[in-house]
């Protein structure tokens, strides 16, 4: 299963994504796109997210069972603690 979260996405990007995934709540998308389609969608999201933020969580063959991709402005940052991915928020 793949989950995408879009924050402050530009117009039309959320709607576009609903052609591939189901929007279960504002900006939260769930679906099962194939690896190839996932990569292509991510490319598009990453280039168009602008000042918003995009996060994609996908299945992976690691200890946690999932991997994360982020694009756009850093609000939350995935940090790798020796193989364990945790989420960090910078303190200004």
């Amino acid at each position, binding site marked *: 299963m793949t989950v995408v979260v879009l924050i402050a996405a530009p*117009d*039309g*990007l*959320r*709607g*576009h994504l*609903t*052609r*591939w*995934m*189901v*929007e279960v709540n504002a900006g939260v998308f769930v*679906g*099962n*796109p*194939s*690896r*190839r*389609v996932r990569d*292509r*969608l991510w490319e*598009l999201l990453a280039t*168009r997210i602008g000042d918003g933020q995009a996060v994609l969580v996908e299945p992976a063959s690691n200890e946690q069972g999932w991997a994360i991709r982020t694009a756009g402005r850093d609000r939350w940052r995935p940090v790798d603690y020796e193989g364990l991915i945790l989420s960090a928020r910078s303190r200004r």
Partner: protein
Amino acid sequence: MADIWWKADPHDLHRIIDRVSSVYVERSHLDRDENAVVVINKRETVRIPAALIAVILLGPGTRVTHGAVRLLADSGTAVCWVGEQGVRMYAAGLGPSRGAGLLHRQAWLVTRPKERLGVARAMYGMRFPGEDVSQATMQQLRGREGARFRKLYRAHSERTGVPWDGRVYKAGDAFVAGDDLNRLLSAANAALYGICHAVIMGLGASPGLGFVHTGSAISFVLDIADLYKAEYTIPLAFDLTAQGLTDERDARTGLRDQIAQTKLLNRIVTDIKGLLSPPGTDFDTPESSELWDERLGTVSAGINWADDAPGEKKRPPLTAALEENTASEPPQLGEQHIAIIGPESEERLPPTDPGQEPGSL
């Protein structure tokens, strides 16, 4: 002209054989909203993941905007206008975003007597479970099928007490045939052809290239529908006649309810895929359009193939087209299913009385 970044590339789309679900919509508007395909009715707004769906079936009371069709075409989703629950098929459309894999496969199978016989045997085999049909000739299969149908008619006649003296019908004019039973059977079969036709179109196969039937523009539709008559239309026609429901509309609504209850749509999708592409065979998704070559298979399109084209894109060395192996987990919408969207879809049954107009938006 605005930047149309939302246009899907062939690589963005799931292969049609991985798309399993169909969506049936009635009494709603289909529109485009912020690049999404959206269904609006008096109860709710639903966004359709068009790129995951093989076919969208538009039932009574639907309106479609140009924008919605443009997005559906871009997503490679087939659109069929149908009667209630797919009984009767009126028109269909399929955009340019589809490969011809399944169609090629069907044409390849149907033009080779040995392969064609194999598919025809498989079709009969689905109807004679537990029997070995692997060596049977078409003549033997036709004979067995005839005997099976005669036995079926007799059994249902005994079960319901409706007399049966032979199937009478006039091809092409389903509704002037024989007695009530024959008339109901013809009406129910016509409805069954509708739903099979819609699914075949939705998968991108050809309705005209049949294996058992031949000559008609819907030969393949007749082939596929024959797989289900014993379970659906024949018992239904006897039941209705026994109950004194002899209107053709009763046959259509009866079949409609059975289709919805038994999820026949999915079964049709699975059966067609199984017949045309048994497990282990696969069609590669073409990069885009290609040119056929009698020795190499295919070469790239969009290149000037003249020997000394000045200033043209350099021609790649001649190699047979690479087979892109997209072995990946097939995408799913959860389970293979058909979704039904419409204001009354929740409390569908029983059917409304015929005089009642569906509420407008």
